[in-house]
Each structure stands twice: as structure tokens, then as C-alpha cells.
């Protein structure tokens, strides 16, 4: 029986594969590339626990291999092996050692656990209210009087205290590179803090099955330095305290007319509009359309033509717009910017 040889060959292959894979992972997305203190603490715990576990695994595998090589029945081997009942010393040994290893893991588990559940008041942290919807994200900065959607904008190096809930089913809010996830439960508020230590774009995901387009419930986190953030807030506040600006170019004006008629009931722009769909005040500044499509005029048009095709089961109906209407809307929407 050459089984064990094959087994080892295969296991080393996996080791290799593991190395290749760990090297990968996108900076913006991977939990293995932490970009903030929360993710970093979690990464440290992952490293500690996997190091201990890999140590145990190696011990198990050494004994395993030795036993399989040494004690397989040889041709012509006779007699009956000694029937051993047990060995108290050994059995105590492998009860106590794992126990000690667990204590090594338990201590940081407890300390980190409580550190992550700290709650920061508005003097110490930016407060952000997150409301999850099938299949999009609403973000409000209650102390600053600003609301947005899909793209979460944060200042770098500052703690952010999230208050999370859901408008429909359960979702989970997850920005792997910044920290672990927490569920958004309808009818309840959960709290979590995060902090980004690098500027740039990070990827956020919904991690709880929430319906047909759960896979497409992505969002982006845009982290900027404090000055840029303050400027963004000022821009948003300036626009959202007033009625929507009147579009100037003829195409956009036509688009705005359609928008006011068919879209404003669900979508807010500036200080006006409904809350059934994402706030579009700064739509033109966003990374993606509907969280998933690259932000190009073609993709905006594609979305408007048939939102159900891009995201099955989402709550924006197909409004049966003709090409001219779509074109006008795309032009109008490209003016929705605060930058």
C-alpha cells in the first residue's frame, strides 16, 4: 500500500497552493491585508490561533506518518500485537497540553473581544448610521446632517462608530480590510467601531443571505484625509440644505424633468425626494453604479433600461424608458456631483 506516500505528495501540493493563495488577495478587499486597527487586531488573533493550530497539526501528522510507516503489517508478519488498554500518563498529557494552548488563545480573545465592543461617543468618533436595504446601503451622518448611499465616505485615522439596522431583512455589514462584520437586524440597532489608517477605496460586502441579489449587495468605502472629508461634508451639506439645482444644459434639463416626475418619489436629490431608493445627491461622484457596475454613462444607461437585469429582484422597477429619455437622464445624472 503506497497510500501514505501519495497522501504526502498531495499534502505538500496543498502547502504550495496555500502559499500562492495567501500571497494574493486584493489590498482593497482582503482580511489578510488589514488597513486599520480593528482588522489588524483580528489579523493578529488569526495568526496566533492558526500558528498554534498548525503546530498541533504538525505534531499529529508526525505521529500519524510514523505510525503508518512503522506499524503497517509486513508480509509474513505473524502473531498478535499487544492489546494495550491505555496509558494514564499519556492521556493526561494530551488533555493538559491542549488545555494550556487554549489558555494562551483565550487571553487575547477576551481582551480583544472587549476592545472591539467599546462604544465611542461623538466627541471621540464620527457617528455613522447604516441602514441596509435589499440590495443597497444607506449611510447617514446624523451629527453632520448629511445622507448618502452606496459609497461610504470616511476620514482617515479617525474612529468611526457605526449604528446599524435594516429596513427589511437581515443583512451583514462587512469591510474585510477594515474589520469584521456585524449583522443589521430589522427592528434593532447594532453597534460597531472601525478605523481606516490608509486613504483610498475599500470594498464592502453584504455577508448575510438577504435574497436573490445578495451577491451583488456591494458597497465602496472612500477614505480621504480630514481636510478632504470636511470639504466633502461641506459640499454635501450645502447641496442637501437646498432644493435640487436646476440643470442648465438642454439635455440635462429634459432629464431633470423626467427625473422629477418618475424618480424623485424614490430617490432624493439635494434636499428633496423619497427614501425608497438610494440618495442620489452625489451620484456622479460614485465609484460604481448600484454598487456593482463600473461608473460609465453606458452602464448608467444599462441600469436605467432594465434594473432587474443587472440585479435580480431589486426594488427599482423597470420604468420602460425609451432611448431618448435614458439619454437625457444620463446627462442629468452626470451633473449630480458635490466635488
Amino acid at each position, binding site marked *: 500500500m503506497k497510500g501514505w506516500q501519495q497522501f504526502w505528495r498531495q499534502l505538500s501540493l496543498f502547502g504550495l497552493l496555500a502559499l500562492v493563495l495567501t500571497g494574493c488577495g486584493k489590498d482593497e478587499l482582503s482580511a*489578510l491585508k488589514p488597513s486599520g486597527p480593528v482588522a489588524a487586531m483580528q489579523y493578529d488573533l488569526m495568526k496566533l490561533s492558526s500558528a498554534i493550530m498548525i503546530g498541533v497539526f504538525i505534531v499529529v501528522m508526525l505521529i500519524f506518518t510514523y505510525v503508518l510507516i512503522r506499524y503497517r503489517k509486513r508480509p509474513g508478519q505473524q502473531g498478535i500485537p499487544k492489546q494495550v488498554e*491505555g496509558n494514564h500518563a499519556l492521556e493526561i498529557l494530551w488533555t493538559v497540553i491542549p488545555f494550556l494552548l487554549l489558555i494562551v*488563545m483565550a487571553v487575547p480573545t477576551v481582551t480583544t473581544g472587549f476592545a472591539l465592543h467599546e462604544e465611542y461617543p461623538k466627541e471621540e468618533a464620527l457617528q455613522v448610521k447604516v441602514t441596509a436595504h435589499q440590495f443597497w446601503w444607506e449611510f447617514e451622518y446624523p451629527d453632520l446632517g448629511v445622507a448618502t448611499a452606496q459609497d461610504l465616505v470616511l476620514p482617515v485615522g479617525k474612529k468611526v462608530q457605526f449604528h446599524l439596522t435594516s429596513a427589511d431583512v437581515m443583512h451583514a455589514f462587512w469591510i474585510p480590510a477594515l474589520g469584521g462584520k456585524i449583522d443589521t437586524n430589522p427592528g434593532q440597532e447594532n453597534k460597531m467601531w472601525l478605523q481606516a489608517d490608509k486613504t483610498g477605496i475599500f470594498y464592502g460586502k453584504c455577508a448575510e443571505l438577504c435574497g436573490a441579489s445578495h451577491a451583488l449587495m456591494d458597497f465602496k468605502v472612500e477614505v480621504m484625509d480630514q481636510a478632504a472629508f470636511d470639504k466633502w461634508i461641506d459640499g454635501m451639506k450645502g447641496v442637501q440644505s437646498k432644493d435640487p439645482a436646476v440643470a442648465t444644459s438642454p439635455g440635462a434639463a429634459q432629464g431633470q424633468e423626467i427625473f422629477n416626475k418618475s424618480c424623485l418619489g424614490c430617490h432624493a436629490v439635494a434636499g428633496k425626494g423619497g427614501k425608497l431608493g438610494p440618495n442620489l445627491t452625489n451620484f456622479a461622484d460614485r465609484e460604481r453604479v448600484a454598487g456593482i457596475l463600473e461608473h460609465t454613462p453606458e452602464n448608467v444607461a444599462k441600469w436605467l433600461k432594465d434594473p432587474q437585469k443587472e440585479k435580480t429582484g431589486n426594488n427599482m422597477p423597470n420604468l420602460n424608458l425609451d432611448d431618448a429619455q435614458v439619454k437625457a437622464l444620463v446627462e442629468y445624472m452626470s451633473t449630480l456631483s458635490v466635488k
Partner: protein
Amino acid sequence: MSAHASHAPAPKRSGLWDWLTTVDHKKIAILYLIAGGIFFLAGGFEALLIRLQLMYPESQVVGAGLFNELITMHGTTMIFLAVMPVIFALMNAVVPLQIGARDVAFPFVNALGFWLFFFGGLLLNTSWFLGGAPDAGWTSYTTLALNQYSGRGVDFYVLGLQIAGLGTLIGGINFLVTIINMRAPGMTFMRMPMFTWASFVTSGLILFAFPAITVGLVLLMFDRLFGGNFFNPDAGGNVIIWEHLFWIFGHPEVYILILPAFGIISEVVSTFSKKRLFGYSSMVFATALIGFLGFMVWAHHMFTTGLGAIANTLFGLATMLIAVPTGIKIFNWLLTMWGGQITFPTANLWAVGFIPTFTIGGMTGVMLAVPPADYQYHDSYFVVAHFHYVIVGGLVSGLFAGLYYWWPKMFGKMLNEKLGKWNFWTFFIGFHLTFFPQHFLGLMGMPRRVYTFLKGQDLDVGNFISTIGVFGMTIGTILFLVNVVVSAKGKRAVADPWDGRTLEWTIPSPPPEYNFAQTPLVRGLDAFWIEKMAGNKGMTPAEPLGDIHMPSPSFLPFLMSVGLFIAGYGFMYHNYVVVVIGLLVTFGCMFARSVKDDPGYHIHEDEIEEKGVKA
């Protein structure tokens, strides 16, 4: 034995009718195996489609909606309708033989348990043809599983699982009573084979865990069918209660599944090392402790629910503790092999392959028990990898080991060794190829239950490799089926093909319907091995040869289950006439069973000797 039991010979039944009315634990085992096997193929096919969809980014093999139906049905089918029944198949086939009993304590209830499971599973699967399968995940978290957010399919989930779960519950009770009451003389608790011990603890877990899901399903049924508001936050309901009820059942369920696998591995490793199990009493203790701790840790499935730091930390630490008894088991298996003469027929290949695979699954389990780190792992592919390591790499390997090991006893035929080895290696390699990369996919930011992933997220390679692995598992499964077919024409099995240590190997393969012509006298752990070492041919009988009392076959278990099956549709479609008809059938059968005296029948002493199957 009732004095007025009839001395008429057994009513001769043949073919299909025999299978529909049997109360013989050995035949019920085969029924469980066939039904579980068919559901396993269905669940496996669903898995294949899932992985094909995820082979490439943004692919459209199945749509978003269908994908959610597939993952829901894959999980539900595999847990409730595939691995549970195969476990019950082995428990039925083996436990009575291992304790020297002629049947289980309640043969009628045993049949009822099977038919309830079967019709529950059937009801659930008819959803594919009646407007769509459930699509809220096998966990069916509210509020997604409420009417507003999901289709009729979830009704099938609720009623199908309710009926199947009843079957499992009474099956568990039956085995508890059987193991407590029906052991042969001398078979003390601390002489019971490890698989029997595992079945005993598993049955206990079933008894305490299944009522939780029963309650949960009743509440969900009220919410969905009768406008209840238990889980509806808009009407003052609470969405978290379902999570608790589900996992108070769901976590022990994990141990309900894995403990029998531990039992199988213990038997197989010991037999093929030609050594008694190392540290038997610590194994028993570890099994019981795992079962006990299994009830203390359900909230580790809910670390991200928002229970707070204290609850999370306590549940996390409790979960870590389970690593200790589990580690004891792994080292005991290694030391059982130490100093032995290990041979590697397919059964032992599976058992030996189980050890490293399960160790990996157990290790990721400990990692998941660290709540702050779990906030990253939770609901990501890391978790998917973890539980498939435990359930497929662990449990399914264990079940294959058990099937190759006990197949001769169940069917009187040997499975082909060459095919068996191919079966093992293709499945084993395919398994690791599928699930090992998924650990990293999760850490790299891939949530679970996503029907697709976008390009440009560095998730392509891992998903591609993962899908390739599935082909290995598929080939392995097909080879097993081929092996089953080939074995029908293959070698006849002798009574004791593996030089076994326990009582089931003292009787012919397959055993006669009364199992033991004379109840054996048990003189220690590994009862048969003791006799072999003492130079005895077989067991010393504990009773003189005499007439054997047998329970009569009955069609009532089948009918009772059909009644609930019909009533289930009545509930779903709000047709109360159908409900009443269905319940009348069920309760009518119960009434008939209660008033009709059924004394069973006897097998005559000379009939036993004629067949030449004296133990």
C-alpha cells in the same frame, strides 16, 4: 413474551409489500440507506450546479433566484435527508447486533420513524415542481424566510422538516431505549463497542435538540400560514428568536452527526490495527463530554448577531473547550494504531484519511471559536470550508468507512476492493481540492451564499480550483455506485470477513431475521475477540435454544406517514378538507394500532436449527 402469542409461522410476505411493511431493523437499515443515498445524489447534484455556477466570475449557468434555491436545498437535503438517514442506516444495521439483541426496543416505531423521514423529505423535494424550492438558506433566517420576502418554497421547508424531524426524534428515542434495555447478559455499559456508545450519546442529543427546532418550525409555520407575528419586527416580533431556536438545535445537530463517525472510526481503526481501542474509557468520557458541551455553545453561530462582548466571549471560550475531548479522541486513534499490524482495505483507508482531514476541520473550528477573529470568518467561505471539512471530510469519510466495513454484514456481499480504492482516492483528492482553497477565498473577502462574484477581486483562481475538485468527488461517488452494482454479483461474505472484535461478526452475513439463535454471553469489551483469544469458536450462549418471538410486520407506519404527508399539503394550500383527511388517516391508524392486539409470532426451535444458523 406474552403467553398468548400465536405459534403460527411468520406471515410470508414478498417483494415490495415486504419492504413497505417490514419492522425488521436490518431491512429498515437498508431502506434508510437507499432513501438517504437517493437524497445524497440529489444534494450532490445541487452542489455540482452550485460549483459550476461559481467556476468563473459573473457566469450565468443558473440565475440568482435558482442559485438560492439550490444552496438551500443542498444544505437542507444533505443534513436532514442524506447524512442523518445514512447514520440511522448504520445504527439500525449495527447497534442491535453489537449489543446482542434480536431487534430494537420498538420495531413498529422504528418503521414509523423511517417512513416519517421519507415522506417529510419527499414533501420537501416536491417543492421543485410546485412553484419553486425554498430559497432562504438551510438556516431559513427570519425575516428572509417570512412571506413578504420569500416564496411558497419555505412552506415546504417548514412542513417537510417538521414531519421528517418527528421521524428522527422517535428514532432517537427508540435507540436510547434499545441500548438501555436490550443489551445481552454481560454487556455492561463499559463493555459496549464505541459505535454503540456514540449512537447512544447521539440519540440522547436528538432527544434534547430536536424539540427546539420543532418549536421553531411551529412558530415559523404560524407566521407563514396563519398570519402570526413571532418573527415580524413591524408587528413587535423578534427576528433573533429564530436564530436561537435554530442553533439550540443546530449546534447539537453537528455532534449528532459527527459522534457516530467517531464511533465508526474507533471500530475500524481498532479492527484493522488488530488492537483494542486505546484508552476506551477516556473515549467514552470524551464522547459524553462532547455531547454535553455541545449544548452550551450554540451562540457561536451568532457572534455577529450583536449579542455583546460578554455573551460572545463566554460562548467562545466554551466552544474552545470542546477541542480538548476531541483532541483526546485523535490521539487515542493514533495510539490505537501504534504498535499494531495495520492493514489498509478500503474501510481503513477512509478511516485513516479521516484523521488528518478531520483534524484540519477541528482546528479551523477552534479558530472560529475566537469571537473577534470570527467577525472576519463568519458567513464567509472560510466557514464553508470549515464545515465541509467536518461534515464531508469527517462525517462522510466516516460513513464510507462504515459502509465498506459493515457492507458484508448488511448485504452478505463484499464490496470490490479495487474499485473501493479508486473511490477513496478520487473522492479524497477531489475533496481537498474543492474545500482547501475555500479557506483562503473567505479570508480574501468572499462571503458565502453568493451566486456570483465580480471580476477583478482576485477570487477567480481559488474558485476555479474549487470547482475542479468537485469533479473528483463526483467521480468518487459514481465509482461507489458502480461498486454497489458490481458487488451484487461479487464475492459472498463470510460471517467474519475482517477478523472482527465485536458481536456482529459472530453471526452470519447477512444475519437471519432473529439475529442470534441464542443470546450470547458477553465477557468483556470486544466480546468476540475475547472468545477468539480464549480459543473458542463462538460465543457462549446465555440461554438454551428455544422459540423466538418476533414482531409482526405492519403497514400502519407507512399509512400514518402518508396521512401527515397529505395533511402537509392541506396546510400549505389552506385546504382544510385535505388537512382533515390526512390527519384522519394518521390518527385512524394510531387508533387501530392501539385497539388491535398484536401478539407477534414465533419462530420454532427446530426451524432455527434447520437453517443451521446456531450461533
